[in-house]
């Protein structure tokens, strides 16, 4: 769970050494649709892979099944926990020297930065990382990489709100007419923190002060936000996940997504290999596959998220990512430092404090 100061120092030293050696192997092996530096025979000999993630179980299992279809000797094992619980578990396991996870998807860059500081990630520069932008990867490269982008903006129920009165911009969502009928996410949501941060940068520090009088309803998950939207309990969802909208739209639910001209919020999902992974070769092989076009295309199809790779098509029914202006924090360290302030303000807005 926790580390002593000398351990933090050693993590920094390891990171510095890693910065020098952050290159993929000399001769990556070409597989079907991806390149790998992993020893495939050894990975198959390990015979298993354990993934800890926050992604929905059914969709994540479908994605992992695709990898299993390519490497049937590697048995997939998936554990889904909400981000905070997942990180608490991961840290407790490290503190107790118990290592069960090979791959960790922590859903929030704050968690990934912290885990990297604690020396929790194995450094592995996948040959597939060359196709990922530098700013989408850890520094130094190889500890974690964005595996998916969660896009969010505004959604409304067209049976309750006409197109004329619907919000078109982020500022429109602050209109007093949405009092008691607008939803947001709670302060433990990484996506909500990103939204708070980037819109504050865009519109000024007092932007969110207009939300508190609307008495927004706050939820842990986009599932609850969309449930209430389509059942008419709320009219507008702020920080509405595009993946949730696409999934609802595919089912024929009455929901419209608004693309504010100033941009849509995008929060990354960082993926990385746990340093003491019990199946390290299988983990390397998986990361290579997952970051490649086949792995990313499968992930996008199953989870309705976007790939950070430009050569991967958008999710089913979704617009091309080039049609959006993405609002992403440009300094993650600065972003992380605002967390306490965000929680304090957001808890007041949503009625917790």
């Amino acid at each position: 769970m926790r580390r002593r100061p000398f351990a933090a120092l050693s993590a920094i030293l390891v990171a510095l050494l890693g910065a020098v050696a952050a290159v993929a192997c000399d001769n990556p092996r070409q597989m079907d649709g991806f390149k790998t530096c992993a020893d495939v025979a050894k990975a198959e000999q390990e015979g298993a892979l354990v993934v800890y993630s926050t992604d929905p179980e059914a969709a994540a299992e479908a994605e992992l099944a695709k990898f299993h279809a390519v490497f049937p000797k590697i048995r997939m094992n998936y554990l889904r926990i909400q981000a905070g619980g997942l990180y608490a578990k991961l840290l407790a396991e490290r503190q107790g020297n118990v290592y069960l996870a090979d791959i960790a998807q922590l859903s929030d860059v704050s968690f990934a930065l912290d885990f990297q500081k604690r020396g929790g990630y194995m450094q592995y520069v996948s040959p597939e990382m060359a196709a990922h932008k530098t700013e989408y990867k850890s520094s130094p490269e190889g500890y974690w990489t964005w595996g998916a982008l969660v896009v969010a903006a505004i959604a409304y129920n067209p049976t309750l709100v006409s197109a004329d009165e619907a919000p078109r911009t982020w500022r429109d969502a602050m209109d007093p007419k949405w009092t008691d009928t607008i939803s947001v996410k709670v302060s433990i949501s990484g996506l909500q923190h990103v939204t708070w941060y980037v819109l504050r940068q865009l519109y000024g520090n007092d932007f969110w002060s207009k939300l508190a009088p609307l008495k927004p309803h706050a939820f842990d998950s986009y599932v609850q936000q969309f449930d209430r939207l389509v059942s008419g309990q709320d009219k507008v969802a702020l920080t509405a996940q595009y993946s949730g909208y696409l999934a609802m739209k595919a089912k024929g639910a009455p929901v419209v997504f608004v693309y504010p001209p100033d941009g849509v919020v995008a929060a990354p999902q960082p993926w990385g290999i746990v340093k003491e992974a019990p199946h390290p070769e299988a983990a390397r092989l998986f990361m290579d596959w997952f970051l490649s076009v086949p792995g990313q295309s499968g992930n996008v199809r199953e989870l309705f998220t976007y790939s950070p790779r430009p050569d991967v098509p958008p999710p089913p029914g979704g617009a091309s990512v080039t049609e959006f202006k993405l609002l992403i924090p440009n300094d993650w360290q600065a972003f992380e430092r605002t967390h306490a302030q965000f929680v304090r303000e957001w808890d007041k807005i949503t009625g917790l404090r």
Partner: protein
Amino acid sequence: MIVRGLSLRQIVMPLVVLLCGTLVLYPIGFLINESLNVGDPSVFPPEEYGLDNYWNLIDDYHILANTALVACIATVLAVLFGFLQAWILTRTNIPGRQRLERLMELPYYMTPLIGALAWGVLLGPKTGLVNQVWRSLGLPGDLFNIYSPYGIAWVMALFEGTVAFVMISAAMKSMDPSLEESSRVLGAGKLRTALRITLPLVAPGVLSATIFVFAEMLGSFAAAFVLGIPGRFYVVTTAIWQATLSFPPDYGRAAAMGLSLFGVMLITLTLARLVLRHGSYATITGKAFRPREMDVGRMRWPLLGIAWGYIIVAVILPLAALLLTSFEKFATVILPQMKFTLANYETALQMGSVGPAFVNSLTLGISVATVGVPVIGVLAWIIYRSRMPGRGAAEYVIMFPQAVPRLVFGLGLLWAWINLPIPIYGTLWLLGLAYFTVFLPLGLRTIASVVLQVDPSLEECARVCGAPWIYQMRTVTLPLLRPGMVAAWLLIFIASVRELGVSIFLMGPNSKVIAPAIVNSWLSSSSELSAAMALIQTATVFAAVALMFSLARRVTGVTQ
């Protein structure tokens, strides 16, 4: 014989107390340590100690007040419903009692979070089905708003209150009916008999149930999570959820909040002990009796109506709402928008992890209940019958896991067991041990209500006749405690199958259980899929319980 018996007793009694006490206190030690951490939360063990986390609770006074409000309302409702239903179903001769009794237990089979979801569908403001019917009659506004403190208390009472019914029923089944008959012969009416004879005689059961249910309500999470947060109404458990799952996690605040609830529990338990000390509640004496129901004459039909009314409201309506949701393409309560599909059941059954999770949950439920009940039976006897020094303190210690919200206790268990050099982390063994620890209070309170009804003279008689302690326990005490032990088995089995707070932190990739899978589905996939999974869970547990009781009847010839 006596000397040999006494020596066995001298070995077994301290061993049981020591084992149970250690299982509880060891994780609590980690929690107390964390609650005093006022330094960097990322350093372990803490470098700075202080009481700041406790002082800061003053700032959260509105959360504590909210918690007390819903816990009190829910406890009163649960005990009231539980008592009334237990009396009707165990003490009167209304038709179909056994079937109704099984139906009464149904809400307890379900992960409470899904129960709250069902009530959101029924009584949600603006579009809840009941409110839609209300408006279709041309009546203004909403009839009910489930997203309110009263709505939360209502759902808590229905879904957690089954415990009260089972505990009070067990006490009523162990009651000599001749006492009620004497009252009737002497001219008292049925209501007067129920209030003046039945109620005082089952007072230990009612009090036990009240203490347990109150503690359960203080630490109840699901209803407040599903219904409170949308209504901007926070209680201790939802605040703890936020504190433990945020980044950086505020474990100190969460632990202090969780442990502070034990203070409330301590006062309640002390009051209960004081009340029980001043009375004799023995109804099982040397005089032979057979549990008989009271002939309530023409009153049986109104009473049957009340029993079925409760079943319809508490069981059938929410199950119907869930059934409707589970067949929907997307969850909505607006009738013209509904689209139906079987896909949710297909997805639930195809998910690779669901099958093993069901098997694991059922295995854990059966094992923990079967191993735990005899141990807890002995523990209850030690606390309420023996003269072992420190037995009173043992009761307070055993009640600890009930007073601390499960989410916080789960963290304590995680830290405690992962730091032991025993390789059981990530296995079903650890989940089994954890379930046994957290369900000690449930078993103890259920069996305690019956222990207090057994006249000590029966055991004294066995001892005078030369029976060693173990023989007396096997042939006199435990058979007399059978209703309490059967009830405790049932409750522990079901509670294990639907356990969530502890499982979240302790389950591993090879030891998944079903309740977190359902909640995860609700948090990350869809309400429709979660409803389908919850109904599969309910049907499975119902079938398992029915099978278990049928087997038990065949083997022992005993009906519940």
